[in-house]
């Protein structure tokens, strides 16, 4: 913990975390509070640093695929995808066209799952638990589909360097279409709840604002930056995988709202629009998918020998549900394992934007504002409040109660 700053009588400090309800993984915040208002925020990370990059530099690329999958449970497709693209980039491996389309289908399924999960968590944070069940019921159908296509609900093990490991055959297609139709049918219900319901509006409008300038300067990524009006989406910006063939555009809040504010409400709009976009992308993929191989080199020893011979470096970028993920790899031409492997997950870039978002907000807004960037770190139990030198503990339930109370108060 950093040294406590000298404070005047009117402000006090609240440490939140490393364990906290709005965060799915540990992170430590220290808030400087004046009454109910947040004056300053400090963020400390590293509580779940597992030295994955270090470990990866002692594994071969095939082993790293499965290690990368375990960087994050929700983004279990995104990291292997970026890593495989970085290796392909460094070793000049070409991916078959069919595999490019299959990658998009799996990537977009994951985006739907992730955004649905987030929508549920956001509803829970403001005390709207019935919506949590609606969204997670819908997410469950997508998880079932993922299991049907890959054999697993979460860690899919579908990625391979130079392609994917399992094909989607004609017998899989009806089930995909059925799930997409189910999602489309229920999407309207979701849109109505999130965008028209009074509870959501009062808690999310003009709350946790990130301006366009801050989003650019602080290098924010994903829905967080798009909600502030920055048009940045790797899927549109670069013609990678099959995204170059598909009809796709930037999802910014002005499409629905007519203007961009950069508040929590805008971040909800962007994610909702992206769920719809993902459904359309999957349908486009099913229409356009060409036949052919799904992996460029099925013999793994041959693939590894090729990698071992290569001296070179490459980057792999992919638009994850939370924003751009980038992997960098370097091979020295002597060893199988990469000389360097650097992973940049999306939340890494969305840490600094928290500070302008949270400044000036109330304590009861912390959960929803922190959750609005969809941080990929973990959840829990205790918040300690240091007030006038006496430490009291705010449990998860109490902080959650504060948030729910604010909703009730505003509803009156």
């Amino acid at each position, binding site marked *: *913990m*950093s040294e406590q700053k000298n404070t005047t009588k009117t402000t006090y400090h609240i440490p939140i975390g490393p364990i906290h309800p709005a965060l799915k993984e540990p992170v430590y915040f220290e808030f400087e509070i004046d009454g109910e208002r947040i004056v300053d925020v400090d963020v*400390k*990370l*590293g509580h779940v*640093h597992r*030295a994955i*990059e*270090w470990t990866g530099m002692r594994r071969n690329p095939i082993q790293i695929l499965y290690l990368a999958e375990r960087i994050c449970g929700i983004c279990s497709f995104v990291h292997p995808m970026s890593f495989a693209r970085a290796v392909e*980039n460094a070793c000049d491996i070409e*991916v078959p*066209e069919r595999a*490019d*389309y299959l990658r998009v289908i799996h990537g977009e399924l994951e985006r739907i799952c992730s955004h649905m999960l987030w929508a549920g968590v956001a509803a829970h944070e403001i005390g709207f638990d019935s919506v949590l069940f609606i969204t997670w019921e819908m997410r469950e159908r997508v998880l079932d589909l993922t299991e049907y296509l890959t054999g697993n609900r979460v860690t899919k093990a579908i990625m391979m360097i130079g392609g994917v490991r399992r094909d989607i055959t004609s017998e899989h297609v009806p089930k995909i279409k059925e799930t997409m139709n189910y999602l489309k049918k229920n999407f309207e219900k979701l849109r109505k709840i999130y965008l028209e319901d009074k509870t959501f509006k009062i808690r999310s409008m003009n709350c946790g604002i990130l301006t366009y300038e801050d989003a*650019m*300067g*602080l*290098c*924010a*990524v994903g829905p967080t930056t798009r909600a502030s009006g*920055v*048009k*940045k*989406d*790797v899927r*549109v*910006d*670069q*013609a*990678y*995988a*099959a*995204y*170059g*063939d598909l009809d796709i*555009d*930037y999802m910014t809040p002005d499409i629905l709202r007519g203007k961009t504010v950069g508040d929590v409400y805008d971040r909800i709009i962007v994610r909702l629009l992206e769920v719809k976009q993902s459904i359309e992308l999957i349908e486009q993929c099913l229409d*356009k998918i*060409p036949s052919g191989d799904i992996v460029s080199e099925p013999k793994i020893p041959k693939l590894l020998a090729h990698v071992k011979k290569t001296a070179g*470096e*490459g*980057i792999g*970028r992919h638009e994850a549900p939370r924003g*751009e993920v*980038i992997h*960098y790899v*370097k091979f020295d031409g002597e060893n199988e394992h990469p*000389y*360097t492997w*650097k992973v*940049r997950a999306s939340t*890494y*870039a969305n*840490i*600094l934007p928290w500070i302008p978002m949270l400044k000036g907000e109330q304590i009861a807004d912390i959960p929803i504002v922190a959750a609005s960037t969809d941080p990929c770190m973990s959840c829990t139990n205790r918040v300690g409040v240091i007030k006038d030198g006496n430490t009291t503990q705010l449990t998860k339930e109490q902080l959650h109660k504060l948030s729910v109370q604010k909703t009730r108060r505003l509803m009156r």
Partner: protein
Amino acid sequence: MNAPKVKEQLTPEGIVKYFKDEFKTKIKSSNVKKHVEGSKKKEYYNIWIKIDKSIFKDVIKHLCDMTYPHLAVISGNDLKKDIELIYHFSLYFGKRYNEISLNISVDVPKSKLEIETICDWIPGALVTEREKQEMLGIKIIGIPDSRRLFLPDDWPEGVYPWRKDDKGLQKYIRNLHEVKK
């Protein structure tokens, strides 16, 4: 040095030429890599530029004047005598098929492990600069916040996890089969 204003968007080759015209031999190497994927075979570009440390800050300034870049991350390689830092930027995003990835690498000699901060132009670089300080032992001159980021406060001084020399983690590694637990 004042950067000449570039109004129109440059091609990948144009970007390399622009830096070469400005900095001449201080640009040590450059490489434009074209990639195609998917059925339509639309191309996208990765540019790799290696620059001399003395012009580092100027290059970043020129880049910011050219178009405001997005800094993805800084990665680091321990190359025995030097530490190579690679700044991964993306330029010209916001228009379909328009983005260019620019990777600027700079070698910092281990005898003087120092480089200037770029937080004054790109405040978002703070997180990744702090990470480079603790993981590679590079001193970032002028960094607004020099505390550790990921490593705990009781981590020993002078040990840097990503280093491959004697300042790395080698002496801390215990193989399970040797520990006899």
